[in-house]
């Protein structure tokens, strides 16, 4: 009970901090960076929900991000839908793709699933280039309208989306539902012996993960006002996986911290702009070696244990 209250206080403190940050320091530049970090947060949490809990590392999360972003781009520029349709539409589109790729591949394990998803993302990226007449090829789709004209307003909207996403997925992960997903990671045969429809839960978790990734993709499209095939790139997925590793796999809230930390950190290294990906890759190696459980979630658990003891 006490642990829950500390969690809640921690979450509230974090949200307040993120909300106040742009008011204190101001400047559109910082708001932009924070917006991007929050969108990465959505992607990292959604990755963790499926991959962290069920233990199937998805190397093609960018597939769902790209699908979400392109859906937003198409609807907004080609069909003239208002930007507000982008969020639900991109979630639906990502869901459809999750079903198409998930149904045949989810029975694969470990590296095989990772590779299948990676292949899916690579195929989509190529298709964007091949059908350049429809998709705009290398340049992608430009002229997407902003969702909210005030930059600060949009940032708050993205932050709210992150909070809702995290709260929902965290609640799910801590329910019996999440327990089943973790059991699937533990042993599929035993799950079946316990009467659990493993396939259903795996598909459902991939669909949920994809839907939120797609929503994040739509937000990103309306932030950049442009989408390009680069969204489907393998590095996008790897960046997200690194963030989750930093945050702490399967903790759901950890990856939010991991995403924000890494985006801010690389902004601090902006003078070394070209070194950004190098920093990510080296971080990943260091984390794999020295902090296999990540940084954020284990730290928070330790803080909680400290606070809990004196009472």
């Amino acid at each position, binding site marked *: 009970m006490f642990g829950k209250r500390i969690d809640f206080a921690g979450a509230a403190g974090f949200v307040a901090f993120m909300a106040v940050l742009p008011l204190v320091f101001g400047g559109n530049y910082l708001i932009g960076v924070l917006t991007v970090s929050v969108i990465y947060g959505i992607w990292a949490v959604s990755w963790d929900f499926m991959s962290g809990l069920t233990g199937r590392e998805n190397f093609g999360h960018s597939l769902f991000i790209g699908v979400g972003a392109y859906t937003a781009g198409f609807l907004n520029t080609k069909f003239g839908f208002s930007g507000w349709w982008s969020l639900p539409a991109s979630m639906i589109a990502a869901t459809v793709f999750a079903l198409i790729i998930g149904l045949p591949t989810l029975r694969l394990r470990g590296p095989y699933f990772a590779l299948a998803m990676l*292949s899916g993302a690579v*195929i989509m990226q190529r298709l964007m280039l091949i059908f350049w007449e429809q998709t705009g090829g290398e340049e992608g789709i430009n002229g997407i309208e902003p969702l909210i004209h005030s930059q600060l307003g949009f940032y708050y909207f993205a932050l709210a989306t992150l909070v809702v996403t995290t709260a929902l997925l965290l609640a799910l992960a801590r329910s019996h539902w999440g327990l089943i997903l973790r059991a699937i990671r533990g042993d599929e045969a035993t799950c079946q012996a316990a009467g659990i429809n493993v396939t259903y839960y795996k598909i459902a978790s991939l669909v949920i993960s994809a839907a939120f990734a797609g929503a994040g993709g739509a937000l990103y499209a309306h932030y950049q006002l442009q989408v390009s095939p680069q969204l489907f790139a393998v590095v996008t997925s790897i960046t997200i996986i690194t963030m989750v590793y930093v945050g702490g796999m399967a903790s759901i809230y950890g990856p939010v911290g991991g995403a924000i930390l890494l985006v801010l950190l690389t902004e601090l290294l902006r003078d070394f702009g070209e070194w950004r990906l190098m920093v990510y890759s*080296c971080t990943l*190696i260091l984390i794999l070696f020295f902090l*296999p459980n990540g940084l954020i979630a284990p730290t928070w658990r330790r803080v909680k244990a400290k606070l809990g003891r004196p009472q």
Partner: protein
Amino acid sequence: MLEILIHGAVSSAIYAMLAVGFTLIFGVARVLNLAHGSFYALGAYGAYYFTSHLHMPLLPAALLAIGLVALFGVFVEKVLVRPMRRSQLAVLMITLAVALVVEQALFLTFGSEYRNVPEFVSRKFTIGGVDVGGQRLLALGVSVVLIGLLWLFIQRTRLGSAILAVSQDPEAASYMGIPSDRIFSIVMALSAALAAAAGVLAGPFLTVQPTMWLLPIVKAFAIVIVGGLGSIPGSILAALMLGYAETIVGYTISTSWTEIVSVAATLLMLVFRPAGMFGKRAAF
């Protein structure tokens, strides 16, 4: 027709060189090495750097590049992969991170422009009315010879049979006193050297740039999945199939579709016959 036959053979040969090394290190050490494509890229960049910056003659430059990449492979295996071997996913992550580090290092050193690797043979040959670059024929020939030598090495030498023993049953091999850790390093060196050789040979007619590791690794993976993980003959056959499939698609539809062929083949294969076309049931 003849054109497809020849060019298909060249692509297949390059793919086979990549895939054989990739499947070898998996078969022996159960390591899915995503840094394999980086060895290929480093081979090509090495040849480029030693010839154009250090002005070395091509053959020593090529051999030096291949040797250094083999050493790098041993480093990756010993220092980075070995401590992670308990978890296949950790191996996947660490080798992927290595691939990205290599890509970024190449990018930071050489930029993203295309680089030229000099050709061993620059004249063209005409075979049955079809013009073929000499370098392509050389690549084909060398790859057949190298893979043949590798096969003989594994089948005929003591070290080769130790490698086979480790790949079939690591535990039994360790009872027999075969030092499996040394075997892993040797196989990694061989595998890296083959990939680097592929890079040196194919470099002149491919685009040499920092991201060049990605598609080859996806293709090597595809080939190895189709051929059955860990099976050398399987991967050679699959390399032929993919090499020709891509060439045919390139000629009949459009070259922009060739890249998708192998990736789509992997996906289909994973979905329908995850054990590979010829392989036994792999370690799922």
